[in-house]
């Protein structure tokens, strides 16, 4: 049931972001803003062919250029690598782990595997000279036919990674299920579709960037980086270089977005770490430029999904088989595949009696696959479009077929056929709220009137359940280290990062709420391995849930100690104390009160005034570990579109989201996260297409060709909230990725609704004007 949750003094309030004055006035501090004495600059020589053997590399002319300080090739750096793997994913099989990494080397060694593959690293006095030098390096490559496209990669006897036996990275075979086969054989209706989405890239506003200084005299490796996780980078850099981990320091100040791309260190960044370690003389900086970012930073989404649904005459789901094909490029982040997760959450908001998932991820001579906001979201893309295809096949309204299958409040707790346990989700409630916000009847009338004039309007719906705050391995918990200083101000240090999640505001909201102080007296310190605890960083819609939980627990511990000291000083019982706005007072006796600023000095300087046996100081640590492996949030998206029948241009008329992320720390931040995700989802359907030609040349390496939606293309995004608390103390559910998960199928369904009476049934992104007009032409001829 939906319930009304009253907001606290801070939690639940749309507190303006504390970081905005700095960021919006252009005073954020990104990697490129960091200037160090004697700092040198890095440029890469990258492969301009997708596949081939390196015959020779001649750096002599480049080395002779004044201002060039060092040039390294794969032969210089790759053999020096200790280990190259990521804490979150664990070691590769040869080191006792289970993650099948691509064979990672910082620079190309012997051959190149995609256009943009880094071959040579140049260190020069400035970036201009470094790029001049890059132009002078001569690399001779014996070009081989690129392996482009997952089907080609499966069919060919050539290998993306020479010496390996297959181009398949990971394979999850479709489980054997004789009883399921029997179910399908006996089902009233069985429908099959293939859905696909084109490749997109994360496009952080700040591309990758890293400064590394190895002080060979002290033995410290100091790093400033645009990363989502300083702990991950500290550990990875230690493994790469052999510098003991406690001698590695990583700082991430403001980070201009990541969307998953900056969770794990990539080869280019590893090359800078290795080069700095070898060079030893001075700090070196690499700021990835936009062309490099579009050509060589990991990308997402290129997926093909085969779906078969068995249903009754009434559209009730009997079962599904789903197989995910993923093009993971040459060097994906971690292992690249998200099919395991996608299969597990495929049932989503519906009561599927059975789902059999499988998948295959395939290496190609293209940029590697990244985690990208909702990395497993191909399941929602396929499932939600399939619901509409089935509805139209059976002559049932797409809303009605969802109502017949959606999980209701009285089904909870609900265990899906893939063993996911939902405790407090509201797919049915959000569906109804979103439809009410639209006014479906009014839209259907408008649609019919428009169609009579030859205009094409359509509406789409998509529902999903988001597995937020995934808790396994290092992701299982977060810690808050909190200290109150002598003047009563609070510093809380966490492993989180600042790449757009507003934690500088929301964590102080939580702390101020539960400690009972003013928000301006709380500072979050993050993105710094010297002051922050080891942890997973920010990503996977986890920070509100896990970091927020740790912050709350620390605040409660701190409050407890403050209250005990104050009670002792006021000669009252701790049970009779209340805390508000940084003042501890005796309930009902406001005159008997002490501000934090008078309590804190006692803790630090006057042991005689402390309760007997109490340790001096005001420092606490607390950890939070979610009860379950997932904290489920959910939402329903509804949108309406108009398509120009003569040009295929799509205009989004309205975009509506009804969501349930539990107790909201800050509704403004929640709505900002939704809007950002929805815009990326719109991009993936209408605009963004990271396309390669058959020789593996990327064709969208500038913003002239890689089209991200801009303000005029995006409608106002209307948001409705339903609040059901997550189990556990905080009630928070993560929601950072959902906007990007549901928007693509929602928009595709609206386009489908606008065109289906013409015989157009889209299944593949992009759905740009050229694609839609072609489909309309073909339908007319058929």
């Amino acid at each position, binding site marked *: 049931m939906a319930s009304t949750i009253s907001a606290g003094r801070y939690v639940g309030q749309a507190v303006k972001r504390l970081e905005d004055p700095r960021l919006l006035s252009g005073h954020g501090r990104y990697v490129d803003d960091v200037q160090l004495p004697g700092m040198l600059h890095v440029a890469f020589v990258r492969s301009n062919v997708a596949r081939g053997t390196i015959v020779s590399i001649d750096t002599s002319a480049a080395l002779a250029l004044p201002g060039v300080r060092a040039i390294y090739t794969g032969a210089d750096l790759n053999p020096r690598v200790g280990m190259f793997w990521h804490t979150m994913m664990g070691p590769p099989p040869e080191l006792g782990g289970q993650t099948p990494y691509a064979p990672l080397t910082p620079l190309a060694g012997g051959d190149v595997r995609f256009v943009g593959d880094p071959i040579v690293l140049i260190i020069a006095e400035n*970036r*201009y000279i470094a*790029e*001049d030098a890059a*132009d002078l390096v001569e690399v001779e490559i014996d070009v081989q036919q690129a392996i482009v496209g997952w089907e080609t990669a499966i069919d060919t006897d050539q290998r993306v990674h020479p010496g390996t036996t297959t181009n398949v990275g990971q394979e999850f075979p479709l489980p054997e299920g004789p009883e399921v086969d029997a179910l399908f054989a006996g089902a009233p209706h069985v429908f099959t579709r293939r859905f696909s989405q084109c490749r997109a890239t994360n496009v952080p506003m700040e591309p990758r960037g890293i400064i590394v200084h190895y002080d060979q005299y002290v033995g410290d490796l100091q790093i400033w980086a645009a990363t989502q996780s300083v702990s991950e980078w500290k550990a990875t850099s230690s493994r790469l270089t052999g510098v003991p981990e406690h001698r590695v320091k990583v700082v991430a100040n403001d980070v201009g977005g990541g969307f998953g791309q900056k969770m794990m260190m990539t080869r280019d960044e590893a090359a800078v770490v290795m080069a700095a370690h070898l060079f030893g003389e001075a700090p070196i900086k690499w700021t990835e*430029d*936009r*062309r490099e970012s579009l050509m060589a930073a990991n990308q997402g989404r290129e997926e093909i999904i085969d779906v078969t649904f068995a249903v009754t005459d009434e559209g009730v789901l009997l079962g599904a088989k789903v197989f995910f094909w993923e093009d993971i490029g040459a060097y994906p982040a971690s292992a690249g595949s998200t099919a395991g997760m996608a299969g597990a959450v495929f049932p989503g908001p519906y009561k599927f009696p059975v789902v059999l998932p499988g998948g295959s991820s395939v290496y190609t001579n293209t940029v590697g696959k990244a985690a990208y906001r909702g990395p497993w979201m191909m399941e929602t893309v396929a499932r939600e479009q399939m619901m509409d295809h089935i509805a139209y096949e059976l002559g049932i309204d797409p809303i009605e077929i969802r109502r017949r299958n959606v999980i209701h409040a009285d089904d909870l707790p609900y265990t899906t056929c893939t063993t996911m346990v939902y405790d407090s989700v509201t797919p049915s409630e959000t569906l109804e709220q979103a439809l009410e916000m639209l006014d479906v009847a009014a839209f259907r009338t408008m649609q019919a009137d428009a169609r009579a004039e030859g205009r094409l309007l359509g509406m789409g719906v998509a529902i999903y359940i988001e597995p937020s705050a995934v808790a396994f391995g290092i992701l299982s918990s977060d810690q808050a280290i909190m200290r109150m200083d002598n003047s009563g101000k609070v510093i809380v240090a966490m492993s989180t990062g600042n790449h757009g999640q507003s934690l500088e505001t929301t964590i102080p909201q939580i702390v101020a709420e539960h400690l009972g102080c003013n928000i301006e007296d709380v500072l979050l310190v993050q993105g710094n391995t010297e002051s922050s605890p080891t942890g997973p960083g920010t990503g996977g819609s986890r920070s509100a849930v896990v970091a927020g939980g740790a912050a709350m627990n620390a605040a409660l511990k701190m409050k407890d100690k403050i209250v005990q000291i104050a009670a002792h000083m006021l000669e009252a019982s701790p049970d009779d104390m209340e805390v508000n706005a940084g003042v501890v007072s005796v309930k009902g006796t406001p005159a008997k009160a002490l501000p934090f600023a008078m309590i804190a000095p006692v803790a630090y300087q006057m042991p005689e005034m402390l309760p007997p046996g109490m340790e001096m100081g005001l420092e606490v640590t607390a950890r939070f570990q979610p009860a379950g492996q997932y904290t489920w949030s959910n939402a329903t998206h509804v949108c309406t579109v108009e398509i120009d029948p*003569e*040009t*295929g*241009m799509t205009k989004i008329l309205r975009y509506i989201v009804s969501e349930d992320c539990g107790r909201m720390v800050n509704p403004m931040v929640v709505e900002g996260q939704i809007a950002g995700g929805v815009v990326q989802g719109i991009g993936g359907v209408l*605009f963004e*297409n990271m*396309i390669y030609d058959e020789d593996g040349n990327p*064709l*969208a390496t*500038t913003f*002239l*060709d890689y*089209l991200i*939606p*801009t303000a*005029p*293309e995006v409608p106002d995004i209307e948001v409705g909230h339903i609040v059901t608390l997550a189990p556990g103390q905080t009630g928070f559910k993560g929601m950072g990725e959902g906007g990007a998960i549901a928007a693509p199928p929602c928009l595709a369904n609206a386009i489908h609704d606008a065109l289906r009476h013409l015989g157009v049934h889209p299944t593949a992104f992009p759905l*740009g*004007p*050229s694609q839609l*007009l*072609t489909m309309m*032409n073909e339908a007319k001829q058929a």
Partner: protein
Amino acid sequence: MKPSSFNYHAPTRVEEATALLAEHGDGAKVLAGGQSLVPMLSLRLASFEHLVDLNKVDGLSAIERVNGHLRVGAIVRQAVAEHSADVAASVPLLSKALPHIGHFQIRNRGTVGGSIAHADPASELPAVALALDATIEAAGPGGTRKIAAADFFVSTWQTALADDEILSAVEFPVWGPGSGFAVEELTRRHGDFALAGAVVGVQVSGDTVTKATIGLFGVGPTPLRASAAEAALLSGADAAEAGKVAASHISPVDDIHASGAYRTQVTAVIVRRAIEAALKEARS
């Protein structure tokens, strides 16, 4: 994305600028608003030993009426022309085309002359110049000469300007009463280069179209005149027929944003829409 090094020249007189161009030949390039040239330099798609900056050259930033024409100096900013009452009154088609160029930040720096001299076939202003039979004034070491727009656009990014010439001004003819103008273009997003675009001018007397011009952009290696469609319109064809005629004479190529077949099909549509809008304005 850092350009290779170049020598920067900032002359203050046209003669100095053309002398520099004459001295350095094809090693020199003219810099106006920089909205196309600077990205090409930064991407190292082009490099020049010498850049000759026109921004400090006297006498290139006037908008004036001359002999029944509107003369727009080479470095008049697109934003200035866009908000100029003289331009709106004298050459409405130019006024209507300017807001379609990129975004306002681009138009604040970009120049009218620079866009025409750059001769991108998907740009609006070359098509406007071609459609209106504008005259391009070229200044060289030996003085100035005039080039008809029809002779100016040679190929993609190629014009009739010699290496030692600068585009010093563009003269747009001023149409009389009973005229109407329209710009229609299809872009993936606001401010993008056109997938296909049309600029149309008509003059009417009663129900009769007495003058018609149609320029197309984004559908060939240069801006194109849809001469057959103009003739059809003058012979009484309706907007839809004229649109089909215009589309039947082009053969645009495929790129990642749209197929050539798409561009051809929608050209018929946007030409029709532009003619309809221009006629409506002419008759109002």
